[in-house]
């Protein structure tokens, strides 16, 4: 529980710190980078779960995450190419990556049911954080209409993932 709280806190901090401090809205190239990074981090987490977990529900959930986030990120890449936008690395992307890497190292030490529970709980927390960032910062800040629309679809997908993760978490209890 405390681990989960720490992760949520770190991610919330990551998603708000840069823009809260500077008072500046993220730019479209930064928003594209943050959204793409969040997807890649969730794919990496899912791949770790597919290596470690033997639980059918957990594995199925992880496969869904790889499939969906890959599909969404392909759309994102197509869009930035079409708009001629180069995603720009930024403090929020770096903080997200740092927190997710720390979480992966922590999960690497677990196995069996302990790993399954920690992975799924972190998936609930991670999607909650990303959805919050999408709703409060990224979607309102996006200036290109097509980028905004893709982020809005992304939000619906990730809200679905959050609920799916909650169902899997409940089935593990």
């Amino acid at each position, binding site marked *: 529980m405390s681990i989960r709280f720490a992760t949520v806190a770190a991610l919330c901090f990551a998603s708000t710190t840069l823009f809260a401090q500077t008072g500046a809205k993220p730019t479209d190239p930064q928003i594209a980078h943050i959204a793409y990074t969040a997807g890649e981090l969730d794919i990496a987490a899912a791949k770790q779960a597919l290596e470690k977990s033997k639980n059918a529900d957990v594995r199925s959930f992880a496969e*869904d995450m790889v*499939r*969906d986030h890959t*599909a*969404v990120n*392909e*759309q994102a890449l197509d869009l930035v190419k079409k708009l001629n936008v180069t995603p720009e690395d930024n403090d929020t992307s770096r903080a997200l990556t740092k927190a997710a890497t720390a979480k992966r190292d922590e999960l690497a030490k677990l196995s069996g049911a302990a790993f399954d529970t920690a992975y799924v709980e972190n998936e609930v927390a991670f999607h909650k954080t990303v959805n919050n960032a999408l709703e409060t910062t990224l979607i309102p800040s996006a200036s290109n209409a097509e980028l905004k629309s893709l982020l809005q*679809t992304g939000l*619906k*997908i990730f*809200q*679905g*993932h959050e*609920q*799916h993760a909650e*169902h899997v978490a409940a089935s593990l209890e």
Partner: protein
Amino acid sequence: MPLRRTLLAAFLLLLSGSGSASAHGTTIRVVIQNLEFSPAEVTAKVGDTIEWVNKDVLLHTATDKGGAWDVSIDPGKTGRLVLDTAGTFEYDCKYHPNMKGKIVVAKASQH
């Protein structure tokens, strides 16, 4: 005589044809786009077919909450279900449980 027989055969064929058409029922289309079933609620009869057209780039399902059926619908493809039981069926996508739909199935009409 042969003409009359042919006409009779054609007439019988027509009868059996219309009979089988009603046994197959009608097809009701539900479009999936941006993680929404549209229309979200449909009414149908036993023997009708629901056809889900998935316009998203994601794999979706139409999964009955009561466990009666589970239809997988690939991205850009169509999934079908023949309704064989009357009742009210609430369903969602098992990968995106925030997608919700409902089918109200009436008994097949008697002719």
